[in-house]
């Protein structure tokens, strides 16, 4: 028998096979970027001596089991909540050492002294829908963001960023360390002017 050389395998379809695999992985890939509302829960230990907060410094928001909103003892639509919260936080009705020189609110003596004293208390029922609760949380965070944006723009007029954008840049891993260092004190300054004091009370039982 004459020695026969093995025929060469045609590799022309290799590209097709690889493409097929490639398309499969392209389709199944989900580069997930989750986002949401960050919150911090209060620690469990009981406060022995709870600080006394004046009634006018508390902005009570109650969501009942029918998903209706009661803000400062008055029914309100969720669409009006942001404005009401901004008005409350920005009121600046305090005098003397409680005075707030950067507030632009109505200086109503029945509303908050200054943003540092102002507390938003959110209370929900056990039967409240989660999505409504999130909508309320969203609006309250938005109220803080509106004010923080304003102060950020006032303190850093040349930066061309709002507080929210700056905060996003700060938490972005692609931002350079030097830029982060530059942003950090600016963000902290604004956070100090309008600290997020949002207390979530234990829910009421449905009777």
């Amino acid at each position, binding site marked *: 028998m004459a020695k026969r050389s093995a025929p060469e395998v045609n*590799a022309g379809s*290799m*590209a097709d096979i*690889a*493409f097929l*695999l*490639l398309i499969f*992985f*392209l389709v*199944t*890939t*989900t*580069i*997930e*970027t*989750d*986002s*949401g*509302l*960050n*919150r*911090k*829960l*209060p*620690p*469990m230990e009981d406060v022995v001596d709870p600080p006394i907060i004046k009634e006018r410094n508390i902005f009570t928001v109650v969501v009942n089991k029918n*998903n209706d909103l009661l803000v400062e003892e008055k029914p309100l639509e*969720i*669409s009006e909540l942001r404005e009401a919260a901004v008005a409350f936080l920005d009121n600046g009705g305090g005098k003397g050492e409680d005075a707030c020189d950067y507030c632009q609110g109505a200086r109503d003596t029945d509303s908050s002294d200054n943003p540092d004293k102002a507390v938003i208390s959110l209370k*929900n*029922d*056990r*039967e*409240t*829908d*989660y*999505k*409504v*609760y*999130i*909508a309320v*949380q*969203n*609006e309250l*965070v*938005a109220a803080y*963001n509106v004010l923080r944006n304003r102060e950020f723009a006032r303190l850093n007029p040349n930066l061309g960023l709002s507080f*929210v954008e700056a*905060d*996003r840049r700060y*938490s*972005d*891993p692609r931002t350079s360390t030097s830029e982060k260092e530059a942003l950090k004190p600016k963000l902290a300054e604004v956070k100090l002017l309008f600290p997020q004091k949002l207390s*979530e009370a*234990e*829910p009421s039982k449905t009777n």
Partner: protein
Amino acid sequence: MSKFKKKKGGELPAISTASLPDIVFMLLFFFMVATVMRDSTLMVANTLPAADQVQKLDKKDRVMYIYAGKPSDRYQDKFGTQPKIQLNDKFATVADVGAFILAERASKRQELQNVLTTALKVDGETNMGLITDIKQELRKVNALKINYTTRNGDYMQNLK
């Protein structure tokens, strides 16, 4: 002059496609490496509520996920239609949340253990009672950083 005679029919030579498989394989390997397969199959309905004041979640290795919602259609015979908690691949009760968090925390690297966030992926139709119970459990094990995972969108969608 015949030495410098032009070749007849100046057609362009065909471009060699021999390296095409290599290029495609390179892309293939990139996507294989970059792909993250979903690590737990969802057993609950999970239509997240919408919010627009969102912040990005931390890196993936610093997050613990808790799912909650109504069991999906094929589990409804067995588990009913009341909203349930899902931890990893199993349905769980509120009492299991604390143990789950502690186990998850212990499995992470030492330096990450204090910066962990708990992401609550909860269906929009769930009652707040369940979420409040979860939050109480989280407070008991001192997992205080939480994130209500939402979809990006206008909050008015939630009110319909």
